[in-house]
C-alpha cells in the first residue's frame, strides 16, 4: 500500500540545484551566457531600481539625506495617501478573503457540480485588468448606477459602493480574490484526511473543526494568497486613476513625476515605500511558510474526504456562488454592455445599442493592437530566452554563485511597474540613440523592456519546471553520441522543454498585454501606445467610454485566448509525462 506513494515520491525527487553534469571547469560559453544575462538584469532592473533608491536618499547636490522622507511624512497629502494606500490594500485583502475562503472550502469539502463553477470563477477575474472594468462598475454600482437606481426606485435607499475609496476596494477585491482562492484551494487539498479524522475522533466537529484544525493547516496558502492581494492592490495605479482617486501612493507618484517633473524627490520616496512594502509582504508570507511544510498528505493517506451536500446545503451553496458569480462577472458584463451602448446614463441598462464603437476602435486604434502584439511577443520571447538560459545555468553548470541570477530575476516581482518606469526614465535620462537625436526613453523599446523585466519571473518559473522534468541522462546520451553542448541544447533540451517554454511565453505575453502602470509612464507618443494605454486614455472622457470598452473587450478576448492556450499546453505537457508516472506506480 505504501509503495505507490514512495515511488511517486522518488519520481518527484529533483536533481538538486548545482548538481554538476560533468566535473570539469566552467566553459567559456557558460561565462558568456551568464555575463549577458547578468548584463541585462543589471541594466534594466538592478541599476534603474538602484537609481530610484539613490535618488530618494540624496540631495540635489549628491549629499546623502533622509530629508525627503521627513518631508514626505510632514506633507498632509502624502501622509493621507500613505494611510489610504494601507487602508485600501488591507481592506481589499479582507474582502477578497471573505469571498475566497468559503469558495475554496466548498470546492474541497463538498462533492457537487458547483465546484467546477468555482474553478471557473477562479480565473475569470484575472483575464481582465481591474482598471478596464472600473468605469463599467461605476455605471452598475455607482451613485447613479443600475443597482442604486433600482434600489432607489424600489426601497428609496442607495448604497455608497463606489464612493471614494470604497470603489477602489470593491473593484480590487473582486478582481484579486482568485489569488487567495487558488492558493487556499491547493493548501486545503494537501491536508491529510487523517488530520481531520484525528480531530473528529477526539470530539471536534463543525466550526470548531474548521477553525482549530483545517484553517490553521491551510494558513500558509491563505497567507501567500492574501499577501499577494495586498501587494497587488498597494501597487495598483490604473484602478485609482480611472476611478479618480488620486490620494493613494501609486497615483501620487505618477502625478509627481508627470506633473512636477522627474526631479521631484517625492516620486522616489513613494517608490521606495512601495518596494519596501512589497518586500515586507513577501517576507511575511515566506516567514509564515518557513518550517511549516503543511503539505501533510502522507503514506496511505488521501486528502480530506468529500461529503455530499444536503439539498438545503446545496441550495445555500449555489445561492452564495451565484451571488459571487454575478458580482465577479459584473465588470465583464458592464464592459460588454458599455462597448455596445449608444447612450448609458442614469438608467439601469443602456437606452440603445450600437456596434459603432468597435468600428471606431478598428479605425483609430488598430495601431495600438499591433503595438500590443509587437511589444508583448518581443518581451515574452526575451523572457523565455532569459528563462531557459538562467534555468540551464542553475541546473546544468557549476558556475559560481549561479543562484544569484535566479534571485535577481525573481526579485522583480517586488518592483511595481511604476517604480521600474521611473527608474528607466531617471537612469537613461538624456541618453540618445547612437548617431541620432532620438532619446532612448522616448522609444517603444523601453516599454518592451519594462514588460520583459516585470514578467521574467513567470517565464523563469515555467522554464525551471520544464528543465527539471528533463533527466540529465538524456543530454549525456546526446553528448556521448558526439553532440556538442550547444547542439545538445538545441536538439535535445529545448525540444523536450518546448511545452514549458510555450507556457512561459504565453503567461508573460498575456500578463504584459494588460500591464498599465509602467506603460502609462513610458508611453511618450500616441503612435507607440499599446492597447492598455489606449483603454486608459479613452476612459478619461465620457465620450471615449464606448470605444474604450470596445478596446477592453478586444483585450479580454486576446487574454482569454492566451489563457486558454497556455492551459491547454500545460495540460498536454502534463499528460505526456503522466504515462511514465503511472509506470513508476505500477
Amino acid at each position, binding site marked *: 500500500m505504501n509503495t505507490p506513494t514512495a515511488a511517486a515520491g522518488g519520481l518527484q525527487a529533483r536533481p538538486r540545484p548545482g548538481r554538476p553534469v560533468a566535473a570539469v571547469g566552467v566553459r567559456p560559453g557558460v561565462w558568456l551566457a551568464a555575463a549577458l544575462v547578468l548584463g541585462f538584469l543589471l541594466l534594466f532592473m538592478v541599476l534603474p531600481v538602484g537609481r530610484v533608491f539613490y535618488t530618494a536618499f540624496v540631495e540635489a547636490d549628491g549629499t546623502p539625506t533622509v530629508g525627503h522622507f521627513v518631508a514626505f511624512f510632514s506633507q498632509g497629502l502624502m501622509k493621507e495617501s500613505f494611510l489610504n494606500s494601507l487602508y485600501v490594500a488591507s481592506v481589499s485583502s479582507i474582502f477578497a478573503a471573505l469571498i475566497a475562503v468559503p469558495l475554496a472550502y466548498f470546492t474541497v469539502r463538498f462533492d457537487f457540480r458547483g465546484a467546477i463553477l468555482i474553478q471557473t470563477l477562479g480565473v475569470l477575474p484575472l483575464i481582465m485588468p481591474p482598471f478596464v472594468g472600473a468605469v463599467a462598475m461605476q455605471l452598475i454600482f455607482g451613485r447613479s448606477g443600475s443597482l442604486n437606481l433600482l434600489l432607489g426606485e424600489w426601497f428609496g435607499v442607495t448604497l455608497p459602493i463606489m464612493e471614494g475609496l470604497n470603489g477602489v476596494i470593491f473593484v480590487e477585491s473582486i478582481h484579486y480574490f482568485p489569488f487567495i482562492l487558488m492558493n487556499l484551494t491547493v493548501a486545503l487539498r494537501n491536508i491529510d484526511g*487523517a488530520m481531520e479524522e484525528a480531530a473528529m475522533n*477526539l470530539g471536534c466537529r463543525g466550526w470548531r473543526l474548521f477553525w482549530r484544525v483545517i484553517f490553521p493547516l491551510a494558513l500558509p496558502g491563505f497567507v501567500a494568497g492574501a499577501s499577494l492581494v495586498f501587494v497587488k492592490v498597494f501597487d495598483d495605479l490604473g484602478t485609482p486613476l480611472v476611478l479618480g482617486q488620486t490620494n493613494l501612493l501609486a497615483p501620487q507618484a505618477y502625478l509627481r513625476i508627470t506633473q512636477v517633473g522627474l526631479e521631484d524627490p517625492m516620486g522616489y520616496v513613494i517608490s521606495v515605500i512601495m518596494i519596501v512594502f512589497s518586500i515586507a509582504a513577501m517576507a511575511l508570507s515566506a516567514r509564515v511558510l518557513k518550517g511549516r*511544510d503543511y503539505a501533510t498528505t502522507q503514506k496511505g493517506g488521501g486528502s480530506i474526504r468529500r461529503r455530499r451536500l444536503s439539498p438545503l446545503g446545496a441550495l445555500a451553496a449555489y445561492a452564495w456562488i451565484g451571488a459571487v458569480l454575478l458580482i465577479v462577472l459584473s465588470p465583464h458584463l458592464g464592459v460588454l454592455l458599455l462597448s455596445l451602448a449608444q447612450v448609458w446614463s442614469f438608467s439601469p441598462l443602456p437606452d440603445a445599442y450600437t456596434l459603432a464603437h468597435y468600428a471606431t476602435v478598428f479605425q483609430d486604434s488598430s495601431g495600438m493592437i499591433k503595438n500590443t502584439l509587437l511589444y508583448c511577443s518581443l518581451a515574452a520571447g526575451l523572457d523565455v530566452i532569459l528563462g531557459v538560459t538562467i534555468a540551464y545555468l542553475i541546473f546544468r553548470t557549476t558556475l559560481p554563485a549561479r543562484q544569484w541570477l535566479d534571485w535577481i530575476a525573481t526579485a522583480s516581482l517586488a518592483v511595481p511597474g511604476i517604480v521600474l518606469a521611473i527608474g528607466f526614465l531617471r537612469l537613461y535620462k538624456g541618453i540618445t540613440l547612437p548617431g541620432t537625436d532620438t532619446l532612448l526613453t522616448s522609444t517603444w523599446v523601453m516599454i518592451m523592456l519594462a514588460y520583459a523585466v516585470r514578467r521574467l519571473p513567470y517565464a523563469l518559473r515555467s522554464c525551471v519546471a520544464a528543465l527539471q522534468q528533463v533527466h540529465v541522462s538524456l543530454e549525456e546520451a546526446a553528448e556521448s553520441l558526439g553532440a556538442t553542448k550547444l547542439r545538445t541544447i538545441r536538439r535535445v533540451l529545448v525540444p523536450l522543454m518546448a511545452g514549458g517554454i510555450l507556457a512561459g511565453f504565453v503567461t508573460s505575453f498575456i500578463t504584459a498585454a494588460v500591464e498599465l502602470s509602467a506603460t502609462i509612464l513610458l508611453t511618450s507618443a500616441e503612435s507607440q501606445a499599446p492597447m492598455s494605454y489606449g483603454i486608459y486614455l479613452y476612459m478619461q472622457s465620457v465620450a471615449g467610454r464606448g470605444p474604450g470598452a470596445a478596446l477592453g473587450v478586444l483585450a479580454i478576448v486576446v487574454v482569454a485566448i492566451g489563457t486558454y492556450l497556455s492551459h491547454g499546453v500545460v495540460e498536454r505537457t502534463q499528460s505526456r509525462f503522466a504515462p511514465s508516472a503511472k509506470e513508476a506506480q505500477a
Partner: protein
Amino acid sequence: MKKVSVQCRHVRLSYGSTEVLKDVDLDIEPGEFFALLGPSGSGKSTLLRLIAGFSRQQSGEVLIDGVDISAQPPWSRNIGMVFQSYALWPHLSVWDNVAFGLVERRVDRATVRHKVGAALELVGLSAFGDRRPNQLSGGQQQRVALARTIVIEPQVLLLDEPLSNLDKTLRVQMRQELLSMQRRLGLTTIFVTHDQEEAMTTADRMAVLDQGVVQQVGAPATLYDDPVNTFVANFVGTMNLLPGRVHAAGTPAATLQVDGVGDLPLPAQMSAPADERQMLGFRPQSLQMTDAGAARDPQWLWMSGRVEASEFLGEFTRYRVRVGPHSVAVDQTHHAGQHKFAVDGDVSLGLAPSQLRWLSD
C-alpha cells in the same frame, strides 16, 4: 475504569459495487488486546474506521458494551484512534496536540494541565511539550499520538498499523511498550496490522481477514497450529501443502496418493473420507531430514526428495526440497558444526505424524 466489549454483528459494507466487508462477525472481550491481521485490501482498516465512525456499514450492527453505536458520529463515540500516519497537527505544539481532545470536552484548565502532564509522562515525553511534532523522531511522534488518544480516556483504543512507520529495532521496542501500557490501562484495544509477527507477539486473540471475510478468530497459537484453511496457514507462518487423493482401502490405515509422488501412509488420527481430494499441510520445522541412504525412524512418515536450494538464517537453515512436482520447505535447527545437506543431494524427509493437518482451500 470499566472494561467494555466490542462486537460486530453481520457487518456489511460496500463502496459502489465493491464489497469491502462481507458479513463480519466478531466478539472482542473486555480488556482484550485484539489484532486484525490481513493483507492490504482485506478490509481490516475499513473495519477499524467503521468502529471509529469514519464510515458506515450498509447493514449489521457495531456494539460497544452491548450498545449499538452505528448511528453515532465519530466525535461522540469516545473511541480513541491512533492513525497510521499519526496525524499530529503540525501547527500545534506537542502539548496542544495532547490537550486537543480535553479542550473539545470543555475540561477546566487545571485538569487539562494535570492530565496532559500525566499522559506525556506516561509516554516518557514530559520534556517535549513545547516542541512541534516535526521536531520529533518517528518513535516520539508515535508516543505523542498515543498520549493524545489515551488522555481522553477512551472506552476502546484503535491502532491502525501503529508500528509500520518505524524502523525494525524501534518497532520491537514500541511493541513491548504498547503492550505493557495496554495491560496497565486495561483498555480494550483493536490493532490493525499486515505483519503476522507483530500480531502474534502482542495479541491475546486475533482475526485473520481476507477479501472482506473473517477467515478465523483465535489465540495466535491456535491459528498457527490449527489453521482452518490454506490462506490462514500461509498468512500466519509458512505451510507446506501436498494435494492428493485419499485411499481408504488396505491396512493398517488409509493412504494419501500425493499428486505426482505416490502413496503416503496416513497416521490413524488423520481420517478422511475415501476417494476425496484433500490437502495435507505441515510446517517446515515439523520435518526431519536425513541423507537418502540413512535409517528411517518408522514412527515418522517418509518421502524422498532432492535438495534444490538452501538459505542459512542463523537459528536454522531452510532447505527447499523437491518432492516429485512439489517444493517442500524444511527448517533444520542450526548448531555449530552441524551436518549440512548439499544442494542436488538426495535426501529422505520424515513427517511428524502429530503435526499433519487437513486444510481446505
